[in-house]
């Protein structure tokens, strides 16, 4: 549909003022909110993600597109809720206990929101128990953990162990990132995914959230 294409293009251009009127226009034309979300906003973000991956566009362009996505979501959200369509899922993120570094984690949060997720950002210095409690209370599908220090990495394993202990490890998935962690470390401690940069983190969350559905 032409209007959905226009929404996607407007989003790709990072035009946060342009997206909401187009979304309203699509609604007026009778397009259902879920279709606008999937084939307009998210389709646009997917194109943006791919262009970013091949260096056709840079981080600011992605973040502007994300901002345009939020603007569109502000219009759609009440309608999605009232029509019983859940969001793409909630993700709890934070820098693990002992770690005060949060630049990477913040960037992941911005990108996740851009991809249509609800993000519950617990900030930094987050204890394992806090991660799990927040995931439970917000009914989140994924916990994303970040660390910059080797000394704080073990908290990630604590979260995995806690989820296992509470029998939640099938329902709440885990993903980690940060300079000292790696795919090997992720495998070793039993987390579900690893993202070496923000784009990878979003791709990882997408896979995990879909698996939980």
């Amino acid at each position, binding site marked *: 549909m032409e209007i959905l294409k226009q929404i996607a293009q407007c989003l790709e251009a990072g035009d946060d003022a342009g997206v909401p009127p187009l979304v309203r226009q699509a609604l007026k034309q009778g397009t259902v909110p879920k279709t606008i979300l999937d084939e307009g906003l998210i389709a646009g973000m997917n194109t943006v993600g791919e262009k970013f991956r091949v260096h056709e566009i840079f981080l600011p362009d992605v973040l502007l597109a994300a901002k345009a996505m939020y603007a569109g979501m502000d219009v759609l959200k009440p309608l999605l809720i009232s029509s019983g369509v859940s969001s793409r899922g909630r993700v709890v993120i934070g820098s693990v206990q002992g770690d005060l570094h949060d630049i990477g984690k*913040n*960037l992941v949060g911005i990108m996740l929101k851009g991809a249509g997720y609800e993000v519950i950002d617990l900030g930094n210095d987050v204890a394992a128990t806090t991660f799990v409690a927040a995931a439970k209370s917000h009914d989140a599908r994924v916990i994303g953990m970040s660390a910059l220090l080797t000394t704080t990495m073990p908290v990630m394993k604590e979260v995995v162990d806690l989820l296992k202990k509470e029998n939640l490890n099938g329902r709440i998935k885990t993903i980690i990132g940060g300079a000292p962690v790696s*795919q090997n470390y992720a495998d070793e401690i039993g987390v579900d995914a690893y993202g070496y*940069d923000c784009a*990878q983190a979003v791709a990882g969350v997408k896979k995990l959230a879909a698996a939980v559905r």
Partner: protein
Amino acid sequence: MALRPQLRLLGDELLARIVSEARDLLCRLGTQVQNPRVLKLLADHGAKVDFEKNQVLYTPALLDRALASVPHSFKLFDVLGNETHDFSGHKVHFTPGSAALHVLDYQTQQIRKPDTADYVRYTQLLSGLSHIASQSTAFIPADVADRFSDSYRLFLSLLYGEKPVVTGTFTIESFRVMRDMQLAVRGGEKELREKPLTVFSCCPTSPLKWSEITSQNVIDCGAAGIPVEFISMPLSGFMAPVTLVGTLVQHTAETLSGIVISQVNRPGAPVLYGGSPAAFDMRYETTPMGAVETQMVDCAYNEIGKHFGLPTQAYISLSDAKLLDAQAGLETAMGATLAALSGINSISGPGMLDFESCQSLEKLVLDNEICGMTLRLVQGIEPREDFPALPIFEELLRDGHLLISPHTRRHLKKEHYFPGRVIDRANLSRWREEGSLTLGQRAHQEVERLIGAYVPSRLAGERKKELCRLMEAEARRWGMEKLPVRPVTA
């Protein structure tokens, strides 16, 4: 305005002394010129000429007249007539090293003789390298007879590429067809004179000698309005004094003698004050272009050229390594950086390995990035919207980051040079995921990508046809009935 970062190696006093010693050499020892026509020309303009010994003694007045008439700048234009080069002030332009005998074959990693297909790939690749502003006739296809391999290179460059060409002849006879090809591209003598398309390298022979061919080239180019670059090649300790100052005195004398030949022939003929001097490595009997002393002499004679008010050239951003290895990168990058900081107007060398005798397409891709970074460097540091500083820092503290700030978006791409994929800036995991590629592998991928993206030259079809007709006639003249097969994409 940004401060133009600048390197200087010679103090005023030393520079003046080098120049006065070089002038003295020209007036007391002179140069040999093995060309009767040029000897007569010089004699007619007041030089003391011994026609028996082919010896020329210059006079201060002759030198001064030549330096007074030689232009302080000139421009180059591509095959379509668009301006691409302004050789003036401290503006720098890169051009590939020229006339290599060999290429480094990526597949076999062997150094071998090149053929027509290699040359076409080179011109196609160069079309996509945005920081190398001109073509050069970079290597010599070995599948045509030596007698016309010089004009054949120019032919392929003009047929497939649009950028202007740094070139030269190997014989006196070749000049005619190489000029005619340019006339075919431009459409006439006046048009070529108004919009030069090539620069011809003309090399004195060290010490203090002009061969018949190269001195003839200087006057032939002058007559046709084709700019020349003088390529004096003193070798420190061998065919020149071992000291850098002594080498500079010789370079100055040889280059000044070229300027005199050019200007007595055609006052106002455009020239580049160029060269390819080298240290001489007394252990290996080689002429290292990557030696720091070679690069110092290049940068220093550039200062002398600028002292005369002339645009300059040097063979400086190249390497003596045999493969695309760390030595290749370090020597090229050091040379390019020093050259650009010195303001050498035409910097020759990209792509070149093995003492100016081996071209590598993969190295051209890497060197294009070196050129890009260097061009950024000489733009210097300038305030954009930085003062007062308060508002942007208020924004940073308010928003927590500046990733999507209008200030960032306005200045990101002007302020920062983003190299292509040959320069690895991925984090370790991403680098691994993308195949743990070496620099050579990444460069090769870029070579293939850029050749794949090549768009044929927009030179008019009938002018391309005329180029082909000229080349075929020249080949027949030297006994080759049919030219090697070329890709049809020209």
